[in-house]
């Protein structure tokens, strides 16, 4: 459970930092009158959407930290046999990086009111994300063809489960991206889609980060790191 404990410690640090800005030592029974705080007014502002996404990313992060926890816990048992990862995953990783870059491009273009750039970025990002998903499916098929079935070994089961969970989250992101693209298609102004583009870009970067961590765990790169954490905790 070390991965999830680390993750929770991170969340706790952020929450603690935020709480420390909130005048928790105030004595509200002595304070009468309007306290003007610096918070933005109004609920449905872009700020609310961004914070909503942030909270959602914390939930998704917790989900993947738990997958990693379960994986590393199971990996420590004596009968563990790792799965040889198909080389295709490296290509897929490259495509996912491209996808993230494209959306960052779209976001920068949106800030500069450059509609062509936004369209280019959105379409490029969407296409490469779809390519990534197709690549993941091909990787599954390669493994299946080589006899690594989902139920034949715990390592296989974990690989399929974790990649599927990541893929499903990316598909959810594609829905949001599709809606944004459709808005642009129908002739929306840059200002109308700026927030959506930014949220998509943040989500894409987050999923890229999650994928890199997952890849590190699945290939065993992070084994040393995990060992260090385990020694720290026990």
């Amino acid at each position, binding site marked *: 459970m070390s991965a999830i404990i680390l993750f929770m410690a991170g969340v706790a640090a952020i929450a603690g930092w935020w709480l420390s800005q909130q005048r928790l030592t105030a004595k509200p029974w002595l304070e009468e009158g309007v306290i003007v705080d610096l918070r933005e007014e109004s609920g449905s502002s872009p700020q609310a959407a961004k914070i909503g996404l942030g*909270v959602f990313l914390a939930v998704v992060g917790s989900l993947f930290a738990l997958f990693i926890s379960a994986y590393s816990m199971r990996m420590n048992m004596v009968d563990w046999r790792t799965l040889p990862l198909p080389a295709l995953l490296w290509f897929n990783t490259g495509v996912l990086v491209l996808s993230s870059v494209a959306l960052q491009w779209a976001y920068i273009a949106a800030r500069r009111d450059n509609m062509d750039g936004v369209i280019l970025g959105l379409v490029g990002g969407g296409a490469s994300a779809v390519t990534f998903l197709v690549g993941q499916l091909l990787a599954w098929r390669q493994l299946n063809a080589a006899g690594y079935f989902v139920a034949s070994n715990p390592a296989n089961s974990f690989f399929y489960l974790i990649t599927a969970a990541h893929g499903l989250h990316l598909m959810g992101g594609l829905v949001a991206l599709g809606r944004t693209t459709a808005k642009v298609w129908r002739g929306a102004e840059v200002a109308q889609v700026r927030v959506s583009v930014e949220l998509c870009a943040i989500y894409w970067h987050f999923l890229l980060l999650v994928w890199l961590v997952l890849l590190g765990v699945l290939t065993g790169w992070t084994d040393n790191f995990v060992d260090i954490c385990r020694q720290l905790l026990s």
Partner: protein
Amino acid sequence: MVDVPFDTVAGVPPAEVGEVELYHPKSWWTRYVFSQDAKVIAVQYSITAMAIGMVALVLSWLMRLQLGFPGTFSFIDANQYLQFITMHGMIMVIYLLTALFLGGFGNYLIPLMVGARDMVFPYVNMLSYWVYLLAVLVLASTFFVPGGPTGAGWTLYPPQAILSGSPGQDWGIILMLASLILFIIGFTMGGLNYVVTVLQARTRGMTLMRMPLTVWGIFTATVMALLAFPALFVASVMLLLDRLLGTSFFMPTLVEMGELTKYGGGSPILFQHLFWFFGHPEVYIVALPAFGIISDLISTHARKNIFGYRMMVWAIVAIGALSFIVWAHHMYVSGMHPYFGFFFATTTLIIAIPTAIKVYNWVLTLWRGDIHLTIPMLFALAFIITFVNGGLTGLFLGNVVVDVPLSDTMFVVAHFHMVMGIAPILAVFGGIYHWYPKVTGRMLNEVLGRFHFWVTFLGAYAVFFPMHYLGLLGMPRRYHDIGETSFIPASAHDLNAFMSVAALIVGFAQLVFIFNLIWSLFKGKEAGGNPWGATSLEWQTPETPPGHGNWGKELPIVYRWAYDYSVPGAARDFVPQNEPPTRLSAQGAHP
């Protein structure tokens, strides 16, 4: 009173919100059924949760009948008994309490208490309810599928949960896991709303430290739930794959009915870790909203400000954080490294400190207060007693050496029913009697309410207090029929029969409550806007029940905290949060 240095008493323009920003229902369907109004969603959540809760109530009757009079009821066999246990536990903990506190109270109270027009993402909020309803329907459908609901116990421990020895192995377990997954998805949608609304949609002047403790409790519980439910999600998905695809995440190599199964290499302990990483925070996900509600009820009905508001807030946050590092105290009997046992016993006992702070503060709030023994107050007082009772046995069970012999006995059943069954449900009742006038505009019937309180309170003690004694005798839990055993005297069986009768009576009292809810909706006394003389914003709405958008044209401006009761020099014994300060009263209160 002193004024805040950067206070500008006058000259704050009211915050007007343009009409365009609000969602407007266009038809009867979108107003009452597919509504995006948090108040309607709250009522939908509450009704659904109470409806499925009634199913769980009937299940508890059946269990008690079997335990009190074993062998009398031929229609309850051992398998069914296990199914009743499982469904009763799962429904009560997740589909009733979690949904009612966060989906019901959260949806209704958060926007009103922080002075918002609605939740920040109303559409997602609506989806949250419908996914929850779907989860409840899937769960209820397991009663009608071949093989019936799962009988794996509410913890669903593998390997037995998905092996043929457990009832409901065909469909029951699959639908149960599917229902949990749906519930978590639905809850996440709602939870995002509650958190972001508290963070972003507070009205002017509503700093975090001016929020009523109810909002603090629900807010913190929601944050915890958002982080903890993924653990149940992961566990459910993996168990579902084990059952459907034959993977071996949790399933070791084992022999079933004399034959080697296809499984091999999984770890059942892994499931326990995941389950309890959710399961322990879940206790506080239910408890923290209850703490918050009780704080507000006590302060309002004792006409006195809450004692130690800051400590109450800090304690809520501390409990929320600590509850993530105590999970393995549910796994002492699963076996663990002694140092781990020591660590988890220590953190478990440490969490008693902020909890005790809260109890002391409630008692000190009552101290020399002007206590009105209204029905909400009665429930609040009963909550404190019950929670202390259950909390103290928790200190017993938190120690490894005490837990191991008691773990499989009725003592544990008595403990968790006191602390997270009876206590939160008393808070729910107190909250409903308190806020029903705001929701409907009418008071609940007083006579029926007092009857409901006394029968519920005394009856629940008649059921669960003697159960501790049975547990200490060594009476095992989860047993369909104890049979003849040398260490259990005949008097224990008599006690069991007494408890069963009490349980039946308590159950009927809940029917009276349901009747009261419906009857008062039409015939109840008109409540007016603020029947309790309360300070917090939800009582200051221009209309009762609050209209669409809650506040009419202008959002309220908050000038003070939520607990200005019996302020010296003030005209009334309460000062609403949105009442501008008058120089006169401020000077009068100066020391």
